[in-house]
C-alpha cells in the first residue's frame, strides 16, 4: 500500500505497520504504549521511522514527552514547520 500524503494519515499509516491495528482504528487520543501495546523499544522505533520518512532532524531529547498518537502527529508537524522555516 502506498503511504498517504497528508501528515496525519502518514503518521497513522506508519503506526499501523508496527502494531496489529488497522489505520481506521487508530485515534489521536490513544497512547502508544497502554492503548496500542507498544513497548519502549517499538515506540522509539516508530519515532525513528517517522524522522526518516519525513526527513526530520529529531533528537532523542525531543521525543521525551511524546506518548500519544496525537502528540506524535504534532511532533512531526512542528519539525516540518522548522524545516520549512
Amino acid at each position: 500500500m502506498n503511504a498517504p500524503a497528508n501528515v496525519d494519515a502518514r503518521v497513522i499509516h506508519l503506526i499501523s505497520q508496527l502494531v496489529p491495528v488497522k489505520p481506521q482504528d487508530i485515534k489521536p487520543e490513544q497512547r502508544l504504549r497502554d492503548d496500542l501495546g507498544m513497548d519502549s523499544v517499538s515506540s522509539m522505533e516508530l519515532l525513528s521511522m517517522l524522522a526518516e520518512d519525513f526527513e526530520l532532524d529529531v533528537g532523542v531529547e525531543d521525543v521525551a514527552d511524546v506518548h500519544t498518537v496525537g502528540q506524535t502527529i504534532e511532533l512531526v508537524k512542528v519539525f516540518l514547520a522548522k524545516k520549512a522555516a
Partner: protein
Amino acid sequence: MRADVVDERTEVVDALREQVRRFCEREVNARDIDAAARIPKAVLEGLGALGVFGVTLPEAYGGAGLRLEDACRLVDELARHDRSVAVSVGLHLGLGTRGLVRYGTAAQHERWLPKLASGEAIAAFSTTEPGAGSDLSSLRTVAKEDGAHLVVDGEKSYVTNGGFAGLFTVAVSTPGLGGAQRGQSLVLVEPTDPGFSVQREEHKLGLKGSSTTGLVFENARLPRERLLGEPGQGPRMLAHILSWGRTLMSAGCCGGAAYCLDKTVAHAQQRTQFGRPLAALDVVKERLALMHARHFAMEALVLATARQQDDEALAVHSLAAKVFCSEGAGWVADEAVQLHGGLGFIEETGVAMVLRDVRVTRIFEGANDVLLTHLGTAELTRRASEGRRHSVSEVEAALDDFALSLHSTHKLRVFRQPRLLHALGAATAWVMASRAATQRAHLTQHPTQLAFAKLVEQQAHAAVARASTPLTDDTLVHAALGLERTGARP
C-alpha cells in the same frame, strides 16, 4: 546473601533464613527432586509452615509484610539447596502474587491472600503463548465482555507452578475494554473455572522439579470481578510485576552460583595436582577469584535493584540484574564444572545439575537478547536527555561516551538498529553491576570485597570496549548468510 544495609527487618529475615537453611538441609534433596521431577508435597507444606509463601504478602492477611529485598535473600537461600524449589517460591512471591497485592481490590485480597500467604494455595502467572513471547502486543488469548462475565479463549505456554497452582494471574487481550481500542488486561483464574484447563507437564533440561505446563481457555467464563486492576492497563501493571519477578529470579541465580562456588572452593582445596592443591595453582586461583568477584557483583546488583522505590528505576535495574545474574550463574556453574575436572560431569557432584538448572534463566521472564535491547534503549534515552555526567568513574564515563557517540552518529535512527541497542545494553548491565559492587564494597571497606569490586570494574571496562567495537557489521553478517543487503529494516 548478606544484607549490606542493616535495619530493623534484617534480623527477622536472618532468623527466617536460618530456619529455611536448617529445613532445607533436613528435608530437601535436590538429586531426588531432579530424578522424580517433582517437589515432595511435604517440602512445600514445610515451607508453608515456616511462612515462606507469605513473606511479601500483607500482615493483615497472614503474611509477613516484608520487602522485595527480604524475599530475595530467602530465594537466594532456597536456591543454594534446590533451584526448582527456589523458582516455585520465587514465582509465587513475585509474578504470582505481586499483581494481586498491588492492584487487587479488598474483596480479591480477602478471597485469595490468606490462602496464598499460608501456602494452602500457590500462585502462578502467565503471559507467554504459543505465538507470543516477549511481544505483549501479539497476545492472542482474548477476553470479551458478556454481561457480568468475561469469556476467555486462547492458549498459554510454559506456566511455572501451573500443575499445582490455586490461582493464576493471566495476561489477556481485551479489545475495547477500558476505553482503549486495543488493550491488554490481567485476569485472575482459578483451576476450577469452567472452560479452563491445565495441560500436561513439560519435560525440561533443568529445574525438573518445578512444574511447567500449558493452559487452555475454551469459552471460559469468568465473573467480571476477576479483572485485576484497571481494564486495558495490563502493560503498565505487567511492567511492575515483571520487575519483581526478574529481581527474585536474579536472587535465585545468586544462590545457584553460591552453591557452585562453595563446592568448587572445597574441591580445589582438597584435590591435589602436580604435588599441590588445585587452589594453589595460579590459573585456578585466578579463576576462583573471578568467580568470587562475579558472584559478589551479582548479589550487589540484586540488592541494589530490590531497594529501588521508583517503578521506572526498578524496571531498568531489574533488566540489568536479570541479564547479569542469569549470565553470571551460567558462567560460574560452567567454571565449577570445569574446575571439578571429570567429577564436574558426574551428576552426584551437584554442579552439573546447577548448570542445567540455571540455563533457562537466560530465556524465561524475558529472553536476555530482548531485555538487552530494552536496557540499551533505556540507557540511550536517558543519556541523550541528560548528557555526559561529571565526576563519575572511568568506566561510567566510557559508557557515557559510547551512548552519546551512538546518539550523535545515528540520532533517532539508532532505535532501528537493535544490534547497537543490544551492545549498549550489554555494556550497561556490566557497568550497573560494577557500580553496585563498588558501592557494596565501600560500605564494608573489606579488602577482599574491594578487590572483588576492582575485578568487576576491570571486566566492565572490557565489556564497554567490546560493545563499542563490534566484531561484525551488517555487510559481513549478510555475506555470511548468503543474503543480499536490503537495508536496515529486514
